[in-house]
């Protein structure tokens, strides 16, 4: 068994010797428990992996919490070979059952574990918490008072006061926002010390700037049309913001500092959403739509520089298509920005980058294009910059070969898509007639045309043919009457060219889209073979020689080009592996700049040249600069906060809370202040394991209840053999009322318990009200939440309802409900609602389960059966009609499911029938 103590009290940091600062940072953290906040790119992960390496042994039991599975894999990769091979760094997932987990705990080592499982194991005493050597908390910025990690830490600290606790974060912005966020997080972590390592820390900057790399910054202006689109998008964002400001006067959000600059940040729409979430049920449809539009527009800004012109236009058209009026949706709302002038500008300019309408134009290079379409195919300006840089490097390598005989060129890009595209771009040869990008764009154009031609039927099938017919009434239904090359709408032909969308009044935006799709469809149908061949040819050509992925071959060429997307902390390893001589930062990324600096500091002798390309005066540039500024400001604020922070005093507080609440519980029952004796039973509550994600179990525990987590099918909390509670936050309540899930849950609860309770829990920080007077509409409508509640209570008159203004109020009410009731029985609670065939222990993956339940023919009665018999959504989709009949029993259900799975929206279903 592990001794419960680390092997050595002062772990050595030999493996960090490459870089002096990291040793410093490590030693500081090893000496005393603390929260470590580092600037991105300085190597937080290597510090974490150093800790893992030290405790990767049977003598210790260290738990690593709050990491994603990707992060675990990445951490594993940073470990040296022996440590990676050893069985002492393990991930614990829900696939292991309790006894297997107990065995792993017995063996010791470093265990990466999800908080939900850890909570269950601590509470059920599967894990000997008092023997744990220490706790490593990753992503400390995500810990909030209500997160399950905070609960884990509290349980750990109350049961084990000797073990260490180190927390890590590389997100200073998260701690700087809000009111004393750092202080609150420190309290949750039971830590008294915070170690701050910004980039501007004297030691860091000295050591990094001593060996600065050779950097060439290239500022490429955007094309005229890109600038126009960017300006138009910003106009749209501004319009959306103004609209939100106007419509949200009644709602309690802080809309004053909504500015366009703010709106460009990655998390802006998320921030608004978070502010609105607790009152989401009171937010108007219009505001909801506007918030999601802001997200779309922000995406557009990013895609403008990262997508090529064809894909960008394609994305725009998909947005238009999904906003088409449709008969089937009563809830459907149109995005208002689509009907503004700047939006017209965006659509028309984006299209003009791809092709122009020109009557009787036939493309000389590519006869398979529909006539009247003149391809423009504007290349991304950075492509040619990249091409020039590559030429320059080639020259340099030729004249001045690297002494070690290896000249790796590393091109770093934002995402996998850009990565693939650049690979293709670089693979195509430069010819005198056309630049490198043309063949690539032509292929994309063909893909787009194919998509567009399918769109005709897709729109009919998806949006309902009724609407399409209605909108395009004069055009006829199937497109048979269309002769190719002759757009049916005269007005459009007259105006022609790039102004198609811009000139169209907003209402005719959709018909134009429709008609064009039909025109293309009929052309491509008539030329199907030529067309396929043309695209096929290109695909073959492209497969021939791919000189870009040979770096794992046996013989390494003297110059190799590697294109990679940014991956945060993993980039440091990438640099170590590749040891590039040239680095091209195709997209700006602050964290990677640091990684290069650190790499350079570790290898001072190496010759590195960095090319840094950025669009001049673009949002891209602005984002890069403000990200740097925000990080710096955050650290400055944290340094100030650190100096004035009120330090929490260890674990004593929580013990006091526990004792007090126990005493309070007891003296109400024992007159004359009877003494606390061991005979008094601690009240118990059985909690569904899924509920461990919410904050209620944590507060129940703090208030002196014994929380027993297990998988229960009916209800969320079982207070006694008679009392069962289903807990709903407001947003849950609304969604589960309309999805019908609550009805099913109420049905099950009332069938199995004599007192079934629906707990409606409001957010503590928000007002305690479901509707305000001004929101009550003059007439009774079934869409109102109150109407649905009425229906629910009418259907289940024995269902009790609890209205709780906060989690704390819930705990008090639970105390009341439990009074004079017997303690719940875990085994009995688990068995309720479970049919015989199904084991109690088995757990279902939630997303596939939810998807399954949305499918037609699947009901609350049969979905469990389906999940037992079929492995996954993928397996279900492959089944034939016979199989489905056998599975669902009900033939009608099987047929509708089969029809749903196999209906091809690209085919003309109307015609076929």
């Amino acid at each position: 068994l592990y001794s419960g103590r680390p092997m050595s009290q002062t772990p050595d940091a030999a493996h960090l010797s490459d870089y002096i600062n990291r040793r410093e940072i490590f030693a500081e953290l090893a000496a005393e428990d603390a929260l470590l906040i580092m600037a991105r790119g300085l190597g937080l992960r290597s510090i974490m992996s150093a800790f893992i390496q030290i405790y990767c042994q049977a003598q210790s039991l260290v738990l690593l919490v709050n990491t994603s599975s990707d992060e675990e894999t990445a951490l594993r990769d940073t470990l040296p070979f022996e440590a990676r091979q050893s069985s002492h760094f393990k991930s614990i997932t829900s696939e292991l059952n309790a006894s297997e987990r107990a065995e792993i705990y017995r063996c010791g080592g470093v265990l990466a574990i999800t908080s939900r499982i850890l909570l269950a194991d601590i509470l059920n005493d599967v894990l000997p918490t008092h023997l744990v050597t220490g706790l490593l908390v990753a992503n400390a910025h995500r810990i909030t008072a209500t997160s399950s990690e905070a609960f884990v830490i509290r349980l750990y600290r109350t049961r084990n006061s000797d073990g260490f606790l180190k927390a890590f974060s590389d997100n200073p912005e998260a701690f700087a926002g809000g009111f004393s966020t750092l202080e609150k997080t420190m309290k949750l972590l039971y830590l008294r010390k915070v170690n701050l390592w910004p980039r501007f820390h004297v030691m860091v900057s000295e050591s990094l700037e001593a060996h600065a790399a050779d950097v060439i910054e290239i500022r490429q202006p955007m094309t005229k049309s890109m600038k126009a689109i960017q300006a138009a998008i910003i106009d749209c964002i501004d319009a959306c913001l103004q609209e939100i400001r106007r419509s949200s006067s009644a709602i309690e959000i802080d809309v004053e500092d909504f500015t366009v600059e703010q709106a460009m940040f990655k998390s802006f729409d998320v921030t608004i959403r978070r502010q609105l979430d607790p009152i989401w049920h009171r937010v108007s449809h219009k505001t909801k739509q506007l918030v999601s539009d802001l997200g779309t527009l922000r995406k557009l800004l990013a895609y403008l520089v990262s997508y090529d012109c064809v894909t960008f236009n394609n994305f725009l058209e998909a947005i238009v298509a999904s906003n088409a009026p449709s008969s089937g949706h009563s809830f459907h709302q149109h995005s208002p920005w689509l009907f503004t002038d700047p939006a017209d500008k965006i659509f028309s300019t984006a299209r003009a980058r791809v092709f122009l309408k020109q009557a009787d134009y036939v493309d000389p290079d590519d006869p398979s294009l529909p006539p009247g379409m003149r391809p423009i195919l504007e290349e991304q300006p950075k492509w040619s910059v990249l091409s020039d840089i590559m030429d320059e490097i080639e020259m340099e390598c030729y004249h001045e070969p690297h002494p070690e005989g290896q000249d790796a060129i590393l091109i770093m890009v934002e995402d996998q898509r850009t990565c693939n595209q650049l690979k293709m771009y670089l693979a195509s040869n430069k010819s005198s007639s056309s630049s490198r990008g043309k063949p690539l764009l032509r292929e994309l154009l063909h893909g787009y045309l194919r998509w567009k031609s399918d769109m005709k039927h897709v729109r009919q099938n998806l949006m309902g043919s009724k609407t399409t017919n209605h909108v395009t009434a004069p055009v006829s239904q199937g497109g048979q009457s269309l002769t190719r090359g002759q757009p049916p709408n005269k007005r459009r032909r007259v105006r022609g060219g790039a102004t198609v969308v811009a000139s169209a009044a907003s209402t005719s935006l959709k018909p134009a889209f429709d008609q064009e799709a039909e025109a293309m469809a009929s052309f491509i149908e008539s030329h199907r073979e030529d067309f396929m061949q043309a695209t096929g040819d290109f695909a073959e050509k492209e497969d021939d020689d791919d000189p870009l992925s040979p770096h794992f071959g046996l013989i390494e060429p003297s110059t190799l080009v590697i294109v990679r997307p940014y991956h945060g902390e993993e980039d440091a390893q990438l640099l170590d592996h590749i040891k590039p001589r040239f680095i091209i930062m195709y997209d700006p990324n602050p964290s990677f700049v640091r990684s290069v600096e650190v790499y350079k500091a570790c290898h001072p002798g190496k010759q590195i040249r960095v090319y840094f390309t950025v669009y001049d005066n673009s949002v891209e540039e602005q984002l890069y600069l403000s990200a740097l500024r925000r990080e710096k400001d955050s650290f400055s604020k944290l340094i100030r906060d650190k100096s004035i922070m009120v330090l929490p005093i260890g674990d004593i507080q929580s013990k006091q809370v526990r004792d007090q609440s126990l005493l309070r519980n007891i003296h109400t029952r024992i007159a004359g202040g009877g003494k606390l004796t061991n005979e008094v039973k601690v009240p118990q509550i059985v909690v569904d394991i899924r509920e461990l994600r919410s904050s209620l179990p944590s507060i129940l525990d703090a208030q002196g209840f014994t929380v027993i987590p297990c998988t229960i099918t009916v209800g969320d909390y079982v207070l006694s053999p008679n009392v069962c509670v289903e807990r709903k936050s407001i947003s849950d309540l609304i969604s589960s009322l309309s999805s019908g899930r609550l009805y099913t849950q109420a049905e099950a609860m009332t069938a199995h318990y004599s007192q079934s309770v629906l707990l409606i829990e409001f957010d503590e920080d928000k007002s305690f009200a479901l509707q305000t007077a001004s929101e009550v509409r003059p007439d009774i409508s079934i869409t109102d939440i109150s109407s649905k509640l009425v229906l629910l209570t009418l259907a289940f008159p024995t269902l009790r309802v609890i209205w709780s203004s906060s989690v704390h109020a819930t705990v008090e009410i639970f105390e009341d409900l439990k009074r004079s009731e017997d303690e719940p029985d875990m085994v009995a609670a688990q068995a309720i609602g479970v049919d015989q065939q199904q084991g109690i222990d088995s757990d279902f993956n939630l997303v596939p389960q939810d998807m399954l339940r949305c499918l037609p023919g699947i009901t609350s009665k049969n979905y469990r059966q389906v999940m037992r018999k079929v492995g996954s959504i993928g397996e279900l989709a492959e089944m034939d009609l016979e199989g489905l009949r056998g599975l669902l029993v009900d033939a009608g259900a099987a047929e509708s499911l089969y029809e749903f799975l196999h209906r091809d929206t690209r085919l003309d279903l109307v015609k076929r029938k």
Partner: protein
Amino acid sequence: DAAPAPPFVPRNRSTIVVNPSQRGNPLLQHIRNVPYEFGQIEPDYMVGLTSCVVFLSIRYHRLHPEYIYSRIAAIGKSFVLRVLLVLVDVDTHQQAIRELTRVAVTSEFTLICCWSNEEAARYIETYKAYENKPPDAIRERVDNDYLSKLSDCLTQVRSVNKTDVVTLSSTFGSFQSIVEASADEIGLLPGFGEQKVKRLIEAFHQPFVVDPHKRKRRRA
């Protein structure tokens, strides 16, 4: 004490019967969608043959804490659905709500909280209007058009939105083809970043049942 009063029979079955003691209650002026009449009944409002409402404002409850107990005792179990409609008209409501919750649970009343007279009137109206309405609106939906079903299903995956659903459907055609598409194919589509692709693929191919031992046994 006295013998129970004879049950009041309303003239019209579609009216709400209001206890005369409610005369002057400001919520009455907001009952506009359903007619009401006064009649000698035990509860405050009779909103159906088998359901009744007792109204209580928390402000009143604080002044007369014993009132609600006597009302509840008088009604006993004489209706199938007994609603305790509580108007939250004070700021420090937690203690009162806690007490009323306890009362409601022990005497088998359904507690409904509201925050304005308008809302209170709306609940009373709705109980009457929906007296015989089947609960279809809150049941699992059975029938719907193709796109909403497809959207409902695919948007279960986080960050997938309606535009993405249209893109997926128009590119791959059927649901089956979407499920069978490879990560690379999906990754090429506009609007699909690595995270989104990963989540989608995971949702399609992750087994329903978590426990691997069970899966093996089932297949065997």
